[in-house]
């Protein structure tokens, strides 16, 4: 009874330090206090294993796509990647999500990016500069799982394909902004497939009832993408993937890349519709002089308009910086505390309670939030400007006439899946020769 009174008195007195409000017992018997168990996380060794697997898979994909030219080999590698990088590893950290860690690491001095994440971000970039998007072909588990479900791909009109493709750059810009300001990792929050991949490591836990706890909506998103992916091949890769957006640019400079045939194209048009991603460019036609003059005029206008587009959208972005800054926890907390101080809301909520529990002066929180808002004004200008630049460069790129005589995979959008090879009669002849060559001696 005395203990209870002491406890209540201590509780009512509101002692900030909770420890030892109640006297620690001196045991008479030989009772020994148990030690708090601390099960360790996954060993570092697995990080090295993941990095080794990434490098090996990239090397295999590049070899299979460029030298061995085997669609079947790439398919097998895709299955292995989905199993290892997807289901076994549970999806995290992937190269796509690593964009955010890197952005935060570059802008926020307090955050050091672990070595494995840096490697996952950089190695596919280097590989793309040499071999094209072989990472997308069969290494990235998100790309591979979508590639495996392509059943009846529908053709998307070229204008729509180009327009939808811009979303990935906008997504990339937004992801970098929110990661660099320490607000959120939107790529992870809206990752359509990680919830599917996570099911396996989750089920490994003996007493886990299901792995859908906080992510039923994410699982539906993933299932939705896979169903859409039956008919619109690789929808995430083509229109959303922010890492793919970077690779699209880098692949244009790549040293080697997949060719439909290493021999001469005879322009038979058999491969024309073979690409489920619409990534094969046709030979250009000779346009009449009048049209070419119009093209030149349009190009001139676009070159002049693009800076205005950058400035205009930059301004729009800075104007939207206030709502964007609400992605940051501190800004949300400050807004709540301010509302409570002004008496515009009744009572407190968890966020404001958490702030009052720190016993810090309100002004400190307000200053902190103001600094974050300032960063978002800059970020808004940059994000808006980036969107303007992307649109401008896309339009300019579309307006530049490029003479082309053969059917070739588009340098940027080709994901090196190798489907087109089987449609090329020259390539088939080469296979036959190779087969005869190996059989004869």
């Amino acid at each position, binding site marked *: 009874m005395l203990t209870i009174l002491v406890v209540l008195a201590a509780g009512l007195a509101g002692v900030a330090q909770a420890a030892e409000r109640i006297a620690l017992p001196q045991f008479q018997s030989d009772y020994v206090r148990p030690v708090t168990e601390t099960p360790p996380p996954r060993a570092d060794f697995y990080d090295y294993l993941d990095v080794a697997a990434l490098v090996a898979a990239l090397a295999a994909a590049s070899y299979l796509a460029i030298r061995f030219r085997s669609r079947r080999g790439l398919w097998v590698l895709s299955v292995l990647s989905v199993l290892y990088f997807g289901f076994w590893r549970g999806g995290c950290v992937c190269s796509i999500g*690593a964009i955010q860690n890197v952005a935060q690491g570059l802008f926020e001095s307090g955050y050091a990016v672990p070595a494995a994440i840096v490697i996952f971000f950089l190695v596919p970039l280097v590989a793309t500069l040499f071999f094209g998007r072989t990472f997308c072909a069969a290494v990235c588990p998100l790309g591979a799982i979508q590639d495996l479900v392509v059943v009846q791909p529908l053709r998307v009109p070229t204008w729509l394909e180009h327009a939808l493709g811009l979303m990935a750059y906008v997504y990339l810009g937004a992801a970098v902004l929110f990661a660099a300001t320490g607000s959120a990792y939107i790529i992870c929050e809206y990752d359509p497939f990680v919830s599917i991949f996570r099911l396996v490591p989750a089920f490994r836990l003996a007493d886990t009832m299901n792995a859908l706890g*906080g992510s039923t909506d994410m699982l539906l998103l993933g299932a939705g993408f896979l169903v859409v992916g039956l008919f619109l091949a690789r929808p995430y890769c083509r229109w959303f993937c922010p890492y793919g957006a970077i690779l699209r640019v880098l692949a244009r400079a790549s040293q080697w890349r997949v060719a439909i045939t290493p021999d001469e194209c005879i322009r038979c048009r058999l491969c024309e519709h073979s690409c489920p991603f619409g990534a094969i460019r046709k030979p250009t036609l000779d346009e009449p002089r009048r049209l070419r003059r119009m093209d030149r005029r349009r190009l001139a206008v676009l070159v002049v308009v693009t800076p205005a587009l950058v400035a205009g959208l930059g301004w729009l972005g800075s104007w939207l910086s206030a709502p964007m800054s609400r992605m940051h926890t501190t800004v949300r907390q400050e807004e709540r505390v301010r509302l409570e101080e002004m008496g515009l809301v009744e009572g407190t909520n968890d966020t404001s309670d958490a702030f009052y529990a720190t016993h810090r002066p309100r002004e400190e929180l307000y200053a902190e939030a103001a600094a974050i808002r300032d960063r978002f004004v800059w970020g808004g200008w940059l994000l808006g400007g980036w969107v303007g630049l992307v649109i401008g460069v896309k339009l300019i790129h579309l307006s530049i006439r490029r003479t082309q005589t053969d059917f070739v995979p588009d340098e940027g959008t080709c994901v090196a899946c190798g489907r087109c090879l089987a449609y090329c009669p020259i390539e088939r002849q080469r296979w036959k020769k190779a087969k005869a060559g190996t059989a004869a001696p």
Partner: protein
Amino acid sequence: MSEPKKKLTRREMIRRGALGAGLVGVSTAAGLLAARRSEGGTVWQLDPDKCIQCGQCATYCVLDPSAVKCVHAFVLCGYCDLCFGYFQPGFEPDAAFERPSAESQLCPTEAIHRTWVEGPYFEYTIDESLCIGCGKCVKGCNTFGNGSLFLQARHDRCLNCNECSIAAACPAKAWRRVPADRPYLLKDEDTKA
């Protein structure tokens, strides 16, 4: 015939230039990141000093039940007969019972086991396979007791998502990345592994 050939060379030159620029860019990024990268990996952990026991650890984790569990620092525990982390407020305990009825307990899943040690002292242990990480017991123990009960992400369960869903939802900003070789933020130094 010389016209298209010339064009190809120009395009090729631009490509080589871009390739060089790309390689320089990637190495610069690598250098910048290497300058302040941490050695090992990181894991997510909850700082018990910042935790306000809002209950979101139980609901926002991608696992069900959550990877967050109640952890007991026995060296801080008062071994109270009337444990504020164990009993519903206002419940009159009967010391003779080691396992009182469910409605007298704070824990919604009866994950806390109460064992008599000696005299007025009882030991409270957490059954992690039952604990859902709601933090109700933690709130009770923190409010009136020594605060020996607290929440931690258990790394034999935690999938270490790149962005922790609980961290994103936490109103108290109590979650942060910690070095993987010191993966817990325990309340008592002596119990650190």
